[in-house]
């Protein structure tokens, strides 16, 4: 019985490896792209809701504060991205 379980586990592990291999070959780039787009949108979203942090007053502050707790971790990367100087290396990113 113990052997059986081991075999089964191996099988699952093998299946998983295949799955990961196929994912790496076919879908990884697409997923990465989707996540990257989502990341950009996240920053756009914070700009719209928390714009006044950069001196861009965007209505309405009361509701911005309601959303603030959810975006605290993203604030510093967002600010860096919004305020940095743009140069040719951006195109490599």
């Amino acid at each position, binding site marked *: 019985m113990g052997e059986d379980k081991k075999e089964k586990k191996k099988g699952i592990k093998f299946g998983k490896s295949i799955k990961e291999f196929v994912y790496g070959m076919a879908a990884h780039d697409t997923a990465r792209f989707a996540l990257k787009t*989502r990341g950009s*949108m996240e920053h756009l979203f914070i700009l*719209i809701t928390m714009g*006044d942090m950069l001196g861009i007053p965007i209505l309405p502050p009361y509701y911005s*504060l309601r959303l603030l*707790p959810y975006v605290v971790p993203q604030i510093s990367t967002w600010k860096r991205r919004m305020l940095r100087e743009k140069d040719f290396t951006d195109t490599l990113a």
Partner: protein
Amino acid sequence: MNLSQVLAANPKMKYIMFGGKGGLGKTTFSAAAAHHLARQGHKVLVFSVDPQASLSDIFQRDIFGKGATEIMPNLFAQEIDADRRIHDFQNEIRKRILDRYGFDKVPDEIESYIAAASSEPAMEESAIFDAVVDIVFHGEYDYYIYDLVPLGHALYYLSMSSIYDEWINKVTELRSEMQRYDKVASKLKSEEKSEEDEILTELEEIRRRINLSSSIFTDKEKTGFFFVVTPEEMTILDTKKAEGLFSKFGVPIAGFVVNRVIPESLLSEKIPDYLRHRIELQRQPITKIGEVFGDRVVGSVPEFERDITGLDMIAKVAEQLFGGAK
């Protein structure tokens, strides 16, 4: 029709508002209407959204920022303290951040944002706006009487709700699109399910609150909006103009109430020329009110011999307002 008949003809009417220029008697009429309805056995809340509210003065009790206070059986009054509400709200946000991330203190840049956002001019209005949503949402009263701020503010309040509405729709749209990308990515990675987006949930909640507030203003069955006018040329013109602006926002106007009419009956008494002239002078505007607003005038209240404060005087106004023939 008089005011009692308007209410009888609209049994679903639940929100009553008096609007008009400053100092014409909005608070007086709000208090009088509340008094009348409470005497009839309805549970009534009269509340003020004005930072310089005068319900405390008219009821001769300090109710500012104290929540709904019982003035007499069935009659409750409330003045919203916007500053305190903002203060409490800031603390609530700080607490949420601390709890969520297990911080000892709110990070500096976040803290300065919380402080800065709260000093913005729109903050106070938004806080009041939100407080009103809380009040009407619970729905424990038969009637809610809004003691509105002067016209300009009321219009600002209304336009704000439509701007908020558009803003929130745009942001929610963006957020849902982000969630779609999330789903695509997690599907490709064969993850079981993507995380529920808490921000989207919060946005939906904000949207629900904003819609509730603006839908009340434009509900023909449930809401009665009354303009207060006085027999003065300028007031009539301004009210006419305001009526146009309000209908642009889809606010149904239920009627006009004339205040501060000096009784004609005084003419038969021995009165000074000064008063005689005043009475003659107001005849023309009164005719004009009839021409301009016609049968939509639902009441006329005289100028009283003294200030309207205290329940006895309020009862007198209520009697005129609801029983007065017109």
